[in-house]
């Protein structure tokens, strides 16, 4: 183990926040896809480059402190805030900005949005 690589993820078109540097570790190996329709291509791409373990949040669960990054397809209200609230780095596929009842937890250091595969760069 231990052969993880880092990626830098920037906000895509119309997106907000970041850039985030994602480096899985043996303690936090999971690329957590909380998206409809299985592991999202953005989560798959992050896992492919970093060597992290892709994981479908609608199928099973892992503790927050094992998650390297959460990938969500949130329309702006709920999931955007939950993972930042737990201090988990969060990538939203949709181009959302901080809003909703959990907006106070969404910061540039924890959250980036509007992300497509092209916004993920090996570092």
């Amino acid at each position, binding site marked *: 183990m231990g052969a993880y690589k880092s990626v830098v993820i920037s906000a895509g078109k119309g997106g907000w926040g970041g850039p985030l540097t994602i480096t899985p570790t043996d303690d936090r190996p999971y690329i957590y896809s909380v998206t409809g329709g299985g592991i999202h291509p953005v989560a798959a791409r992050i896992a492919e480059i970093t060597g992290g373990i892709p994981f479908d949040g609608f199928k099973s669960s892992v503790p927050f402190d094992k998650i390297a990054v959460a990938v969500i*397809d949130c329309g702006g209200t709920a999931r955007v805030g939950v993972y930042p609230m737990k201090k988990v780095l969060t990538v939203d596929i949709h181009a959302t900005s901080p809003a909703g*009842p959990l907006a106070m937890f969404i910061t540039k250091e924890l959250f980036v949005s509007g992300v497509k595969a092209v916004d993920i760069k090996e570092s």
Partner: protein
Amino acid sequence: MPEIVYSSTVTAVGELVPDFAEQGVLVWFGENAPAELHEFSIIHVPEVATRAPQKGDMIKINENVFNVLAVGSVASENLLNLGHLDLKANGLTEPEMPGDVNVEAVSLPTVQVGDRLVVISQP
């Protein structure tokens, strides 16, 4: 003829749901949503899922009736894939977030286990 295009029954209500309701938001998810989303969500099981709400539809939560004023671009895939609905009682006629389903700015009911959500198309 009005037609029921979606209906479901509430199976759990998170402890933060009343706080969200006070801010004019009810967040809904299907039963396979990860645990961290249950805290502020109404968990429900659909019986009818022909389609998601569209502008002009009527939404009923038990006997409370709301008129759909606007629907965000990802609201349909959210509901049909994940059972996820962000119902916002803010009177907006253009969705603020891609996941929003907007209805009149009225107070939202206290939702309990066994309550029913119904979406009815209007002729």
